[in-house]
């Protein structure tokens, strides 16, 4: 039975949630914040009741998609996940999820927690609660004004991992040097995943200097093969640190415009049919691989996991498709150079000439510093852009970025209101055509709200 403080926190949070729902607002953060203010140990207290424990999904990119895949996977094995959806992945989001899927006695109605944790919050969350599995997908520069430096962040995460209970399993991306290095700090089991298809990726790390230095000795890393940004087959010529052996790896990744198929090899020999990943892009193949690795850590049979992934439906702003007036809108959330480049890569693979609706905001959840757009590879996108409607609080920065990337002036138009921007983008596309929507977090919320008002999509908190 939870202690009185937890019960009070639970009641206050649930009341706040009910009040917000009555007023028609899908507040995902406030109830959790209230519960945590009353009882700072609220998450640990409630989560200790979960029969299958908790999985924390962290890292810069891919959290939401991977956590959603994992929720589908555990559901496929008969468990009931509690998941902090809608990209609300600070502590208050986790608390909010426990409130949403709990009762007045502060007992969760599910039996496994599947929580996305913002990478900056991960050290603090690991200090407060003891999960069963911690997944770190990758570490890229993201919102530097909030997280500051990736080295410093990796050190703090490493320090927290060093203090973990040895019964916790860490699932780490072997292809990402700083993430792989975290495994050295853990006293318990580590499960590594990676891409081992020699035909995937190039040889030069992309122009984002997040982690091209050895995490141990700081010498420049060598890459046999680069999969995405700084992820790949790396080794240090100076101290000899190399990519750890993969417990689960993708030996072949076949990409199409709308999906991918990956062949999986595990340390324990097993024959497995190729896994179909019904969302486009190499980065989603990575997400699926990470989800399969966690499934393995949870002792879930891989064929069960593969089936759940094959039936996967993407989340808010992650390659969602919406039809508006006979045009297909593909919503892609972009928030940092690595994520942007991965999304662009997937887009270019289709060979189409995209019509864009691009929206840049600079609120806290977007990154107040918009300079990241200059690290994103708009130069790769520019030659194929058919037309671009640009909007958002910092629309002019984005329009200027397109100009310097080489998009002709007469192909770009800046439109100030969200609704007008959607109208313009739809108007510029032919009947049956496609508009690719690239937007930062709060800009995506605003655009999606506009689409919800027009009845094209559900409000995201109902998702």
């Amino acid at each position: 039975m939870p202690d009185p403080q937890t019960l009070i926190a639970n009641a206050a949070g649930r009341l706040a949630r009910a009040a917000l729902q009555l007023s028609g607002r899908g507040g995902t953060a406030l109830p959790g914040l209230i519960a945590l203010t009353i009882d700072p140990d609220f998450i640990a207290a409630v989560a200790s009741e979960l029969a299958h424990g908790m999985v924390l999904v962290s890292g810069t990119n891919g959290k939401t998609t991977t956590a959603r895949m994992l929720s589908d996977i555990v559901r496929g094995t008969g468990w009931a996940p509690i998941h902090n959806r809608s990209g609300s992945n600070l502590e208050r989001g986790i608390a909010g999820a426990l409130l949403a899927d709990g009762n007045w006695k502060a007992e969760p109605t599910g039996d496994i927690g599947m929580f996305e944790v913002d990478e900056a919050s991960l050290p603090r969350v690991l200090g407060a609660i003891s999960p069963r599995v911690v997944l770190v997908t990758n570490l890229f520069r993201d919102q530097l004004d909030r997280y500051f430096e990736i080295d410093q962040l990796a050190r703090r995460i490493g320090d927290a991992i060093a203090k973990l209970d040895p019964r916790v399993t860490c699932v780490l991306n072997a292809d990402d040097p700083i993430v792989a290095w975290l495994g050295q700090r853990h006293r318990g089991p580590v499960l590594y995943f990676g891409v081992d298809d020699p035909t995937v990726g190039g040889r030069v790390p992309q122009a984002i200097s997040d982690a091209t230095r050895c995490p141990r000795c700081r010498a420049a890393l060598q890459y046999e093969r680069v999969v995405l940004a700084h992820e790949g087959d790396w080794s240090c010529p100076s101290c000899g640190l190399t990519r750890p052996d993969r417990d689960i790896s993708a030996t072949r990744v076949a990409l199409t415009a709308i999906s991918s198929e990956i062949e999986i090899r595990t340390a324990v020999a097993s024959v497995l049919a190729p896994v179909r990943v019904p969302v486009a892009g190499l980065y989603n193949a990575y997400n699926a691989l990470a989800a399969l690795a966690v499934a393995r850590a949870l002792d879930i049979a891989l064929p069960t996991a593969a089936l759940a992934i094959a039936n996967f439906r993407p989340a808010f702003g992650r390659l969602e498709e919406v039809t508006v007036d006979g045009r297909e809108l593909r919503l892609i959330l972009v928030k940092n150079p690595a994520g942007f480049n991965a999304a662009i890569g997937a887009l270019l693979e289709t060979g189409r000439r995209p019509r864009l609706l691009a929206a840049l905001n600079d609120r806290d959840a977007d990154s107040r510093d918009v300079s990241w757009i200059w690290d994103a590879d708009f130069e790769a996108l520019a030659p194929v852009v058919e037309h671009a409607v640009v909007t958002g609080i910092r629309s002019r920065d984005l329009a200027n970025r397109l100009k310097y990337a080489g998009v002709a002036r007469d192909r770009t138009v800046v439109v100030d209101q969200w609704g007008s921007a959607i109208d313009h983008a739809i108007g510029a596309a032919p009947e049956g055509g496609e508009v690719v929507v690239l937007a930062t977090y709060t800009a995506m919320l605003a655009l999606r709200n506009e689409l919800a008002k027009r009845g094209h999509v559900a409000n995201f908190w109902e998702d």
Partner: protein
Amino acid sequence: MDLRIAHLYPDLMSIYGDRGNVLALTQRARWRDIAVEVRAFTAGQDFDADWPDLWFFGGGQDQGQDIVGADLGGPNGAALKRSLANGAAALAICGGYQLLGHEYLPENAPAIPGLGALDVRTRAGTVRFVGNLVAESPDGLLVGFENHSGRTYLGPKAKPLGTVVVGNGNNGEDKTEGAVQDHIVGTYSHGSCLPKNPWLADRLLAWALERRHGPQNLTPLDDREERAASEQAAEVAKARA
């Protein structure tokens, strides 16, 4: 006509969109039919001091900055200093700006010597300055985003690049932002800096071209997008200040 740009330590000192500054210089030269070559100059190489017309030096993470500091303490630092003394232009941002000064004084540790090409000194501050930055200068508004804990103070040879309107600038005390000395500019303005501040980009271009091609009158460009970006950024900054 041609222009040579040296991108200093792009593998170690290139965060916060520093690449945008090189893109802006390159494009603004090409739009004027000036051929541009950009080369990376990084730790472990032997710098050719005679090659660059312009050095770009971005910001970095602390650990990257250690490697860079050590490299600049050797022959590469001497080459860079010689090149600047011989009239090459330079734009240094944040960490690069600090390293071009006389020294960086950490809290409770001995001073780390800088290149001494700019008459500025930096000491560690306790609070990090993070936010929009707007400064006024006689040539135009300087808009961007600052993210630094160093406090930089100008000596008599360095003139401020601008006067702070929003944000903190050099040190949060004297309202100065950035430094100009001969053909060297240091600033805390990311954003990226040059795409939104085309007057500064053009000033650097003119200085850089002067080294091998003599004084230049650059053809004016249509800067509608740049001006719009600057105005919107300044408006947002002022509204939130």
